[in-house]
């Protein structure tokens, strides 16, 4: 318990040179979720940022050690809840790799389409939230209108809107909805029409450009050294798309470009995500008409037991490279499971790139890193 004098001492927390220590979070409108940043300021200029994590730490790694290989997949939806499909895919791929389960083509195609839809949904939400961080409220609603179509598709096929748990080792939990293809096509049509609105409202806006250009510049060397991945690293000119490097599911059968910008500032991180959405649409367009008929789940044993050994599976989530590392002792539960979450590494770069900028720039920088706090804390 704090007593009265402690609080008084704490609020007048002035540093040696008149520095001001400001807490951003855990309950703060700009830190989506419960990220706690202790920001040391000199006037409006940031001198140091120290993240305090753990407000939503659920020890998913420890939980998974007591869950079977069928059960642990649903927990991973709760890590990076905006790309839960992709998390589930990573775990399913890993179990399939560990047991040499054959996955039917149909399941692979559907998984890829759903993964790309999830990526679009995640980026849509990010655009809205990012614009909101910078003070523009309206793009949030426009972005959510398109995202709503995706969640409707998910609801039809998977039965849930956010934490689907649709992907199981060996394929899919049940077959796709009969209207799946028509709905996805309707979404693609609407998305192509409405994506220009973001250009008008956000991309071309002079205020937005001046808020993000040259802000939070991350060099390619630093991006690699800090372990950044996904759009954050690609905006700095680092080629790191797992879909290209180690293709999984049906990614080796589609054509798409890896978006790379070289500036490394907040604006190029923004551009990478916007262009990535168009690439995702391109992938979906190639696959949606060619979903092969057949089984949606491969033959699996009732009780899944991974072979003894170590397995590592990388996938590209909306935020970057998600790695799942499993040490198996041959039992029904993993001996040790580690999730290499993209947000954790991307967050560690925040202090480096936001130092010396204004407090308003911190919002732009933090917004473009696209942090999802349950992903960081796990």
């Amino acid at each position, binding site marked *: 318990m704090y007593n009265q004098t402690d609080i008084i001492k704490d609020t007048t927390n002035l540093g040696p040179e008149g520095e001001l220590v400001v807490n951003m979070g855990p309950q703060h409108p700009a830190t989506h979720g419960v990220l706690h940043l202790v920001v040391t300021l000199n006037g409006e200029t940031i001198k140091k940022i120290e993240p305090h994590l753990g407000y939503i730490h659920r020890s998913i790694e420890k939980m998974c050690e007591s869950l079977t290989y*069928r*059960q642990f997949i*649903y927990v991973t939806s709760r890590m990076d809840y905006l790309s839960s499909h992709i998390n589930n895919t990573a775990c399913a791929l890993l179990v399939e790799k560990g047991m040499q389960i054959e996955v039917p083509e149909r399941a692979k195609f559907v998984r890829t389409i759903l993964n790309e839809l999830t990526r679009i949904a995640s980026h849509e939400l990010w655009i809205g939230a990012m614009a909101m961080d910078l003070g523009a409220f309206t793009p949030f609603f426009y972005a959510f209108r398109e995202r*709503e179509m995706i969640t409707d598709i998910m*609801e039809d096929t998977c*039965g*849930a809107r956010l934490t689907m*748990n649709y992907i199981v080792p060996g394929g899919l*939990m049940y077959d796709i909805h009969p209207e799946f293809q028509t709905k996805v096509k309707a979404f693609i049509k609407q998305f192509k029409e409405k994506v220009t609105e973001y250009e008008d409202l956000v991309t071309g*806006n002079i205020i937005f450009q001046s808020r993000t250009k040259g802000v939070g510049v991350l060099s390619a060397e630093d991006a690699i050294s800090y372990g950044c991945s996904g759009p954050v690293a690609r905006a700095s000119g680092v080629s790191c798309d797992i879909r290209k490097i180690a293709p999984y599911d049906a990614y080796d059968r589609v054509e798409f470009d890896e978006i790379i910008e070289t500036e490394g500032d907040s604006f190029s991180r923004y551009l990478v995500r916007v262009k990535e959405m168009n690439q995702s649409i391109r992938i979906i367009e190639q696959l949606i008409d060619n979903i092969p008929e057949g089984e949606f789940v491969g033959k699996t044993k009732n009780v899944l037991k991974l072979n003894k050994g170590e397995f590592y599976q990388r996938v590209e989530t909306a935020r970057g490279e998600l790695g799942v590392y499993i040490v198996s002792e041959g039992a029904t539960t993993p001996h040790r499971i580690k999730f290499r979450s993209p947000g954790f590494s991307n967050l560690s770069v925040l202090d480096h790139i936001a130092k010396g900028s204004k407090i308003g720039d911190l919002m732009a920088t933090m917004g473009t890193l696209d942090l999802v706090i349950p992903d960081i804390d796990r």
Partner: protein
Amino acid sequence: MFLKDYITDVFNGVSSLLKGMRKTGYYFTHGKEIITEQYPDNRATLKLADRFKGEVVMPHDENNEHTCTGCTACELACPNGTIKIITKFDITPEGKKKKAIDAFIYRLEMCTLCNLCITACPSDAIKMSANFEHSVFDRSKLTKVLNKPGSKIKEGIE
């Protein structure tokens, strides 16, 4: 030319702002673009996806019979102990003892709606219903017994 750059700067800036204002102005004047759903008012016409995972239910037919054999496959499949099955032994007319469920206890407050119990069930005794209005004033009401009182297992289900 400094002055020329200055004027083009101002002009480009203002035109980019006007473009944004035109977009928001369009939506202000076009009321039919409004997309929000009036939830409690549209309950009568509200249509949920038929696969929507709202809660686990156990369907009973008109004779108050279900198909649950009490094999506890769902209990084992559940990742977080939501389901608890209490079994009893019925005496069949032939005088043989037969295993049957006494209570299928389902704790909604712990359920993550992951659908694993449904896929694990060998006799399709449970399914997901689309009901999503779960709020109650007392937490104990979230612990439900799914089999109806007096119900028994359907003939021919092993």
